């Protein structure tokens, strides 16, 4: 009896965790999808995520409004994205290496500027209690859905539609698949990639705002544990498809919630190993979906990652 209840508790916690933990993955991976579809890879989104978390928290503490925090995080993320996009259009500059540098720089700057904000508490982002119909507190906790999660879900549908049906979406895809073709059509490839990287940065910054303003809902130096980079792997797994990003983000969120969920029901044996679950899952999916002989299906042709 107690065993059955334990399994249900874990399952429910994983579902709730998937919804709660997946939002940063979702935003970063959607942003990275836009960037990679234009033919560049930005590994610096990890730094953007951390800086977004810091700037959102600091703004929310000072202004009292979490939404102002989200806006500032988006702007700051956009600035990082534009910096990456601008620097990478210079000849001989490697986008992967610049991404690593921005990862270090973004998190360093966030730790530096965010030092005074570790103590004070910021107003959190609102959540909608979809679990009102149930009497069980676990169900209610699992189904408290943050507004940003819904925004992210809507955004993934919109992006999926926009990549197929809008002029801007098609231009980004052309720039990513063949720079020569885009140039022949009279488009400035560097500018398209600049804007695409900037847009990716905005979304990653908003993902960071979710981290500090909702879950885990505080600002400290360990706030991100590689979500920004895992999201890059997630984009590969999702085959650069925004709708698939949504599913993949939920999967990763669930894997991330496994460790805390097991701990909450008293599993202490090897519990640190469960914390590795999202990383192991990411790696396993990467290994299964990659191939040395052919480019990945759906991969933008100009991407250095898939060449």
């Amino acid at each position, binding site marked *: 009896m107690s065993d059955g209840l334990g399994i249900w508790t874990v399952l429910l916690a994983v579902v709730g965790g998937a919804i709660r933990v997946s939002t940063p993955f979702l935003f970063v991976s959607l942003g990275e999808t836009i960037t990679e579809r234009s033919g560049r890879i930005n*590994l610096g989104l990890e*730094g953007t995520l951390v800086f977004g978390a810091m700037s959102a928290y600091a703004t929310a503490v000072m202004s009292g409004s979490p939404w102002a925090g989200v806006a500032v995080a988006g702007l700051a993320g956009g600035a990082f994205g534009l910096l990456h996009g601008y*620097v990478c259009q*210079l*000849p*001989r*500059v*490697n986008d*992967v*290496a*610049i991404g*690593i*540098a*921005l990862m*270090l*720089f*973004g*998190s*360093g*700057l966030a*730790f*530096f500027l965010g*030092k005074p904000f570790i103590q004070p508490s910021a107003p959190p982002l609102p959540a909608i209690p979809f679990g009102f119909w149930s009497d069980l507190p676990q169900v209610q906790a699992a189904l408290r859905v943050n507004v940003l999660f819904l925004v992210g879900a809507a955004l993934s549908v919109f992006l999926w539609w926009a990549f197929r049906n809008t002029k801007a979406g098609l231009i980004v895809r052309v720039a990513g698949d063949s720079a020569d073709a885009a140039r022949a059509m009279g488009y400035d490839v560097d500018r398209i990639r600049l804007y695409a990287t900037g847009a990716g940065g905005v979304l990653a910054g908003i993902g960071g705002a979710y981290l500090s303003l909702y879950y885990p809902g505080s600002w400290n*130096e360990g706030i991100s*544990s*590689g979500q920004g*980079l*895992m999201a*890059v*792997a997630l984009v*590969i797994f999702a085959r650069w498809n925004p709708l698939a990003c949504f599913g993949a983000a939920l999967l990763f969120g669930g894997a991330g919630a496994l460790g805390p969920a097991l701990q909450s029901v008293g599993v202490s044996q*090897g519990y*640190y*190993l469960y*914390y*590795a679950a999202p*990383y*192991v899952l*990411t*790696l396993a999916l*990467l*290994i299964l979906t*990659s*191939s*040395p*002989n052919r480019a990945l299906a759906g991969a933008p042709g100009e991407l250095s*990652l898939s060449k």
Partner: protein
Amino acid sequence: MVADAAPSQLAAAPSRAPVGLQIRAWLARRAESIAIPVAAALAGFALFGLFLACLGKSPFQLIDIVYRGGFGSSFALGNSLQRAAPLLFAALCVALPARLGLVVIGGEGAIILGGIAAAAAAQPLASLPAALAIPLMACAAAVVGAVWIGAVGWLQAYRGVNATISSLLLSYIAIAISNHLIEGPLRDPTSLNKPSTLPIGDAFMLSPMPWIGVHWGLGCGVVACIVAYVLMDRTTLGFAARIAGGNVRAAQIQGLPVGRLIVGFTALGGAFAALAGFFEVVAVQGTANGTLAAGYGYTGILVAFLGRQNPLAIVPVAVLLGGIEASSGLIQRRMQLPDATVLVFEGLLFLVVLLSETLYGRFKIFSPHLWAEKRETASASAVSVAA
């Protein structure tokens, strides 16, 4: 007429170009690869000074503190060199795969697992004499590191998995494994507040190197850099790796074993990184614990890129960054700056140095042709005067 024709024939045959001319062209090429990184590093310093000035702090005080805290006294220098030692190994873990075109950023994982392996190996070897046990512990660490980062190379070569992402994921997995081992099976029950493995015992601890007073990790790190340099620049294997890094197709057409080269170089890099963890355990901590994840792996990436992936350039860069990190505490206390100051500085330096890549080949003064031509016309006129 005849006297005029002779020197131009000389110039047409490159094998017979005067030695002095060759040296000048070589020097011009070398000057570029030294002047641009140095200028970039100075620009990074200047930008960071500007950043500090904007916050109302004196950049000159920072330079003074970094000098005194990192290099000013023999104690400070020793501290810097001690921090430089793991950076040497960590940077090699980036520079060796980089020769094949792989960006490996997960050296941190190999460092941590190397330290754990060394500490774990100490227990069954306890009855052996130290002279035998310590090399065996080093081997245990190196094997674990070689397998860990070699797997990254294998996945890239045979499965097409991007090495940058897989190495970083593996380093997070390594941290989880080490937490599990340190808190669980390998935990010393007497380590209450700071979970650690059983101490390796005083007999197995390495004494410092004579004269310098810094642990042997520094000496071995420098030797490792020289070995890596010779391997990469003076052997056929290194040459083959460079071809494979430049153009995989060309290397395959030449019949080079690209896959095995990738696995070999990444495994060697991983073995070196693991030695950083080994030395932290046998020369500094005496046990493996959470301090192994001190970020040496990440600073090592910066060291390798600052040294432009050249193993010999890694040595001075590692000492410089070791000094900057050693003065971190002093910067916090004297200037009331947060501990992330050094991180901001390193990030800025990294960005500027990568940006400077775009400057190569832009300055005429470094062009070997310019120097060769000048000499050519000069020697031509000298010959005609003599005639």
